[in-house]
């Protein structure tokens, strides 16, 4: 058995209507303890109404490189943006 408790990543929903956002990490013996620790550590001043905890080892991440070819598919598709289209100035509500 490992000496150390596993690492968990903590995500908080600040209030209804917002996404859960990553706020940091903590160590806990299991997911249930991670939740109570996350409450004590990250919501001492009502910073959250909902918490997710995920074992750090279970997170699959892309390469940290922003210029990675992984993101290339969207690089040359300017037509995905509304500003790509020329429309006469006098057309209302568009």
């Amino acid at each position: 058995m490992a000496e150390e408790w596993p690492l968990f990543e903590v995500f908080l929903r600040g209030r209804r209507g917002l996404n859960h956002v990553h706020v940091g990490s903590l160590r806990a013996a299991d997911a249930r303890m991670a939740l109570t620790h996350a409450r004590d550590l990250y919501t001492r001043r009502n910073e959250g109404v909902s918490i997710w905890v995920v074992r750090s080892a279970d997170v699959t991440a892309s390469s940290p490189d922003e210029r990675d070819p992984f993101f290339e598919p969207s690089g040359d598709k300017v037509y995905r943006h509304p500003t790509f289209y020329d429309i006469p100035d006098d057309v209302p509500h568009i």
Partner: protein
Amino acid sequence: MVDGRRHGDDEEFAEGRARFEETIAADRRVEPRDWMPEAYRATLVRQIAQHAHSEIIGMQPEGEWITRAPSLRRKAILWAKVQDEAGHGLYLYGAAETLGADRAELTRALLEGRQKYSSIFNYPTLTFADVGVIGWLVDGAAICNQVPLCRTSYGPYARAMVRVCKEESFHQRQGFELLWTMVRGTEAQRAMVQDAVDRWWWPTLMMFGPPDAASPNSARSMAWRVKRHSNDELRQRFVDMTVPQAERLGVTLPDERLRWNPERGHYDFGAPDFAELARVIAGDGPCNAERVRRRAAAHEEGAWVRAAARAHAARRGE
């Protein structure tokens, strides 16, 4: 070596370094899985761990007064404050872990004296006025040091510091309010506040570290934008902020050289005893041994709890 693999590694290294330097120059943040120079990583681990240890050891001097707080209100406030210090330590250990530091190893390094914590926590808290002065002066100095760290170049450290700084403001205000209450009390209470100020003023100024000329690592930390202001700049900023607050409290700061310098637009002040700072950092302060012993005892006494929680998790198949 003509081996293509090795050649590729070198190229990757050069590319990583160029990107790192570009990120720093553009004042953007370095994130955990980015390439970074080993010295940058080591500097950050050392600084963040030292900062985390300071928060954890810093629970002790004030924690001693929780059971002796003069009212339920003061007890609840002090309890919340000490709990925040624990929280700050944990945010920071979390940030250190993103650099590949091992949490258990950091704790061992503290207990074995291989990593340091702030010299200020090696001074004793003799009266309840010390609780107020720690909040006002020590946390005030910590805020001066920490606000610029909210923009430090390493992302997880900067984000942890944003949370820490939000909470420190409560710490400083509760300290000032405590003192403000005492100075409006009896003569004995005012004397107690002055005595606490006399004892804490110089150690607080030492918190900013050695003078710039004797701070060899500062230049590199500034170049990496880990650090954004020099020790002496921050010390000056703190003195300028604090003098008017002391006047309002009606306490005297124990420095005969302290006076407003209209030409500089700053207060002139005396130099702290940096030889004392070096001694306390080296382990020879009034409470060094006691602080580490207490931390070691808490760690050992908690061992069965950690083991039981692991066993429980293992049995439930987690």
